[in-house]
């Protein structure tokens, strides 16, 4: 019996949910999107996905070999590699996908320390870098319902995407139902709004993704689009076109919610969602091309520690509520007294007392919990 005993630290029961289950949930949610693009564009979309996933894994393995680190079994490169092709048209050449994967792994992930340390969303940076390099390939979308050759030069018919027409203020010639079902041309995975939204809701139900992030992004974005429409048609249609074109819905569920680069607390997530809605809107409204979402995401990733710091400061004030109130009160007392008495004598008398009070309060806080809101709520439950 003795030989088998192992050392382990304090909580001896652990949650059954682990990184692997969360990540496989995301993988599982990406599958239906690939099936839809298989239906619209033929087998090439699947091959693109496999290519992206394979090369991301291979690049991260090579990277960990170069840095003399122990390779870790990790699902995040697969997710990155699967998300990148979904942002691109179905007839994209393979080398574009591979170089996006290379940028995502070699520039964004490895130098910063691999999974868990990357400061930027790898898929967003990979996509943005190739979109800047080959815009004529990345933003030329084929028409739907045609099988595209798996290898070689694509001869697919090209169609104008709704996001492109919106960018110069024209009304897209598709109706809302087309856009919901995904028969409008656009990025391979981001056009099937219904499927994408269903997969996102699946992720939320599975708790792989916090519901606050997509909601706090989509609602303010929709409000902004209603307030400042780019095209002249009925406001409902304009809203639908704005929301369903480009990668807004897909990004809200799959890219904005990446755990590493987003704020930690729910309140921080709310702030980040609202501000990224504003930044995405500005980038799409004034920016010259359709990579607005990806580049706005990169800019917002910089500020996620700021939102964390805001939350921490609020909570810090709450934790030290009693001592803060005590110092405030003692200040008031001092002021009242100093009005009446000689100021200099007052200062000498009062300061040690107030310090004592602070110390006492600090001791009290150790024992007594802080938030009264919570307490009243719980007593109601009981």
């Amino acid at each position: 019996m003795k030989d088998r005993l192992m050392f382990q630290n304090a909580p001896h029961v652990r949650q059954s949910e682990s990184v692997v289950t969360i990540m496989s949930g995301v993988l599982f949610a990406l599958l239906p999107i690939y099936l839809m693009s298989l239906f619209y564009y033929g087998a090439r979309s699947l091959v693109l996905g496999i290519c992206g996933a394979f090369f991301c894994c291979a690049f991260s393995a090579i990277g960990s070999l170069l840095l003399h680190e122990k390779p870790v079994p990790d699902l995040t490169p697969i997710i990155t590699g699967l998300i990148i092709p979904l942002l691109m048209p179905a007839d994209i050449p393979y080398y574009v996908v591979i170089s996006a994967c290379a940028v995502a792994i070699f520039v964004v992930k490895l130098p910063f320390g691999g999974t868990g340390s990357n400061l930027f969303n790898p898929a967003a940076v990979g996509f943005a870098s190739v979109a800047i390099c080959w815009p004529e390939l990345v933003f030329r979308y084929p028409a739907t319902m045609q099988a595209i050759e798996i290898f070689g030069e694509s001869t697919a018919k090209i169609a104008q995407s709704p996001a492109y027409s919106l960018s110069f203020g024209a009304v897209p010639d598709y109706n809302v139902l087309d856009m919901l079902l995904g028969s409008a041309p656009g990025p391979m995975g981001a056009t099937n709004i219904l499927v994408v939204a269903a997969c996102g809701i699946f992720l939320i139900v599975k708790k792989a993704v916090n519901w606050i992030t997509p909601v706090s992004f989509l609602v303010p974005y929709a409000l902004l689009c209603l307030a400042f429409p780019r095209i002249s048609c009925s406001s409902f249609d304009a809203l639908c076109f704005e929301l369903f074109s480009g990668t807004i819905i897909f990004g809200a569920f799959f890219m904005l919610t990446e755990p590493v680069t987003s704020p930690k607390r729910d309140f921080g997530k709310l702030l980040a969602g609202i501000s990224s809605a504003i930044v995405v809107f500005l980038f799409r409204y004034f920016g010259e091309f359709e990579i607005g979402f990806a580049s706005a995401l990169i800019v917002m990733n910089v500020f996620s520690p700021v939102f964390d710091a805001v939350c921490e400061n609020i909570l810090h004030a709450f934790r030290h509520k009693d001592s803060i109130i005590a110092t405030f009160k003692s200040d008031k007392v001092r002021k009242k007294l100093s009005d009446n008495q000689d100021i200099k004598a007052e200062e000498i008398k009062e300061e040690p007392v107030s310090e004592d009070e602070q110390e006492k309060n600090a001791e009290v806080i150790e024992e007594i919990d802080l938030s009264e809101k919570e307490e009243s709520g719980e007593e109601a439950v009981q």
Partner: protein
Amino acid sequence: MIAEKEKNGFKESLAYIFSRNPVLVLGLVIGQLAAGDTTLQNGVALSITYLLITVPVLVFASVIGKKLPDWLKIVSYAVLSAAMLLPSYFICGSISATIFDSLGIYPSLLAVSTVPIVFSSKIAEKQSPAFAAVNGLCISAGFAVTAILLGAAREFFGNGSLWGFKIAEASFPAVKLPFWGFILLGFMAAIINWVKDLIKKTDKNPDGEEERV
């Protein structure tokens, strides 16, 4: 005694070429390289300009710098380095007539970079003129190595050519944008760190364990 000190000093100033590279290790003239150094020709032109600015300013600082009043020092260095743009304009013009047009404002920004302004007043004033000249040469050599390597790499990947001659088809035109300049410089700096690590390992403790964090 003094000679020995100078000898050590020479060794130190040689380090500016590699292990104390002004761009990759000290992080000095990054912006001009990242934005301006998009082809091999541009790299060469920038290196020549940098050489022509750095050496005279450092020598000038070590010869006359101490005798000038405080308020005149930096002004004189800045004006001198801006004046040195003129000879470099003629020399670089012989490479290609339009090179200064393609470089835009970046060669003139070299005139107010850290080495001619800060380095001269803080370090070069305390050195002998010959030593200051060697220092300047080594710094500009370190700059030139970086600029030429970066320019060649960006021209090759961006246009598939070298010194204007087409040699390959492959093209990745975004490499010429400033952000790829930053990223490539970052990777070059990482390579320098890696080589330094290797040298340290083989030199001092061949089987000593590296600390891991």
